[in-house]
């Protein structure tokens, strides 16, 4: 990463967009303290993630993209394990786990191990682990990928309510329409650099976010070749 400095205002819904391999996942991993940057720092509500990791990690809930979980637990067992690990009392964990599993529609898979979850179910149970300890900041890497439309709508509602209640959300996505619909702040990453950052209006200007994105990353849409396919 090269001198990336996206500031996420408190109480905002921040979308990080960029082409595949631009460094969205790396940026988010560094911001929450999963990866150590070569230089520079990351702060969560003013707390340096590397200087005071314990305080910082209490404030944040993370949904990483494509990482493993303790695969041989069921969803409820995973939440129970995590709650106990975070020092929550058993009754609280059990109540919250029940609600999370119900809202995210995972109660039907009560006997299924995480190892046998579908991609969408994995996203949902990971989101539940991010929410379990009532964080103030949610950092979500591609939260809507592989999620069915009904669950996606549920998650959108959860996230909007979370922001209305004063929480902050940072999410990465390559679906422009989704970011445009949900986020009030946007950052565009290209080649490990921040090409643009600001409110949604500032970044997209007059056109759509997609137009602005294509302009910013300097892409060209290819229309030539494959003539035989349409013959």
């Amino acid at each position, binding site marked *: 990463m090269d001198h990336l400095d996206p500031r996420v205002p408190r109480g905002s819904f921040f979308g990080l967009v960029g082409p595949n391999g631009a460094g969205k996942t790396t940026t988010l991993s560094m911001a929450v*303290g999963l990866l150590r940057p070569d230089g520079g720092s990351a702060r969560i509500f003013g707390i340096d993630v590397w200087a005071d990791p314990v305080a910082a*990690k209490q404030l944040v809930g993370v949904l990483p993209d494509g990482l*493993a979980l303790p695969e041989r637990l069921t969803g409820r*067992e995973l939440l129970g394990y995590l709650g106990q*690990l975070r020092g929550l009392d058993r009754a609280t964990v059990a109540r919250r786990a029940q609600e999370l599993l119900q809202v995210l529609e995972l109660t039907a898979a009560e006997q*299924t191990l995480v190892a046998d979850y579908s991609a969408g179910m994995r996203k949902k149970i990971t989101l539940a682990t991010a929410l379990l300890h009532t964080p103030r900041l949610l950092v979500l890497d591609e939260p809507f990928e592989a999620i069915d439309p009904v669950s996606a709508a549920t998650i959108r509602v959860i996230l909007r309510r979370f922001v209305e209640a004063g929480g902050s959300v940072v999410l990465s996505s390559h679906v422009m329409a989704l970011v445009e619909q949900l986020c009030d702040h946007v950052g565009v990453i290209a*080649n490990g650099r921040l090409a643009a950052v600001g409110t949604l209006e500032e970044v997209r200007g007059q056109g759509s976010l997609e137009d602005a994105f294509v302009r910013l990353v300097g892409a060209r849409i290819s229309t030539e070749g494959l003539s035989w396919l349409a013959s």
Partner: protein
Amino acid sequence: MAGLLTPPTPVATTRDVASALIGMRRTLARNSPGGSGTVVAFRIIGLGLAVATLLCGLIRFEEPSRSVDLVAALLLGWLIGWVMGPILVRGAGVGLRPEWFALVPIPPRRLATGLLGASFAGVAPAVTLVAFAVLPLTAAHFGVLPVLVAVPAALLELVMVVLVARVVAAGLAATMSSRRGQELGGLLMAVVIALASGGWSLATVIGQQLAAGTSPALGTALRVLPSGWGAVAVAAADRSDWPVVLAALTGLAVLSVLLLGAWARLLPVTMRRSGGRAPRAARGRTAAAGQPAAWERLLPASPTGAVVAKELRAWRRDPGRSLLLLLALLISGLNLAVPALAFHLPAGLPWVGLAAALIVAMGAANLYGDDGTALWLTRMVPGVERADVRGRQAAWLLVVAPVMVALTVSLTAFSGQGWAWPWVLATLPAMLGATAGLGVLLSVTRPVRQKDPNRRTGPFDTGDDPNAAGALIGQQYLLLVLAALAAVPAATLVLLGGLRGQPQLDAAGVVVGVATGGLLFWWGGRVAARRLADRGAELMDLVHVGPQARTHRDPTRPPPAAAVELPRWKSAARNTLWTVGILLIVPQGLVPIGFNLFGVDQQVKVWFAARYLPQDRQTLAAAGFIAAGLLAIWWAVAIGRRHPTEEGTRS
């Protein structure tokens, strides 16, 4: 509508399919990446074995039936090798995988025939043919007509062997498509690995019986199996018993056709396997809403308790872990318990549990690497590093220690070897404590990246990176050696106690053993927890991206150089030297010395070269083999070290 727009593609003929597949296989062999060193080493070893098999054909027996037994046994050995080979070197070979052709419109039988043709385009069938020439060579002792029978018999045996291997591989692949099938496949693989390491004891017993000619049932069994039919045909030709010759040869041909049919039926199942996994209910009672399981309530309601519970669940539900235990018991049993019982050596029995404890220690060498990127969860919960390390240690001991203690105590008692008690009581606790302590320490300091658990296709699927596989094996042996070394102080005291006849030294040995284990458990866990807290991000990098992590994750920098690859011949030489070294040290060195130490009957010779010498020179010869073996391994290590790029990535 598509049919109107474009003419339908014609379906390929068997000839087209075969020639395309043979060409594809040749291209793959030419481009073969990474694991090719292993393959070349396998070929060199295979050729050596083939020549050895062929030379067996020169042995003349008094009774012709004995040479028939021998050839049948040799061919059975090759059949087993063909079945086991692909299971052991999965991913390293350059064979064609049927699932690549899932979407190509070729009828299964035609595809199977084509794949069979492609199978013969490799080196392995040629090497096997050299071995199977033992059949005509043996027949030459009998006369011209038996040789004329032996040539087609050898060719038919080759086709049959290749087909059996393909059908088994396809059957395995088909079962592997479900999680239960994966567990079954893993079980089979565990048995194969155990046989590869400890099958010598069974082979010795069988070879002994064959050489002595004491077991007619064994000879019958060898002839009844299809691998013996060629030998049966040759023997029948010698007797001019033509109906039997015809029956044996036709039998082989018919069996091959049937196998081809079975393969064709299995192929579509194999090719469907990417279609998702069958979800399965969790084994053991799952936590119901708000109700922890009864055993879970015995654990403290602390973060450490949570980790222990998670780990115990993994032991119960992850076949990889139970297979590890099974593998340790099988290897130890085949290498120690079987010879101890077969050659009447009760002194070997008390060590079975200790050996199993050392082997199972290998599974503790890469705990964080095995869990893959699931480490992120531990990383994101503040201040749980100590609980995570201690919980893993405790769970390891809770599962492994009772099994090993029970095994050791029961076998020591059963063997009636009273002198062994101080030895096992002193060394076992030291080994178990050292494994739990140094295992977590190694796992944190030198994690080896594995394929993420959710992407694995079976208990032994750890990824296709040969460098990671090598690093993991090194790590596992390191822990095995460390765990054994941890028992040295306690064992020394017991040894002194025995030499001086002072039982109080025995007691001191037991105390020291327990103390060593306890100390290493505590110290290893302490250092591991501190390191996990201080360098957790680097650990995350290592289990996620591997050793190239630092440069790789920055898209503005060029991608890292490809993983270290020794030139083909160097890699082959290294692997060959490793194999030769281990063969020289263990079966040719340590086993004969052990036999002499425990006074095994001098008639037991089989393939232990030293046993063919006069008794007073055997130990010297075996020591010479060990020295030669160590030299070979030192050389193998040196080949890897001296390669410049290898050092580049180590830094």
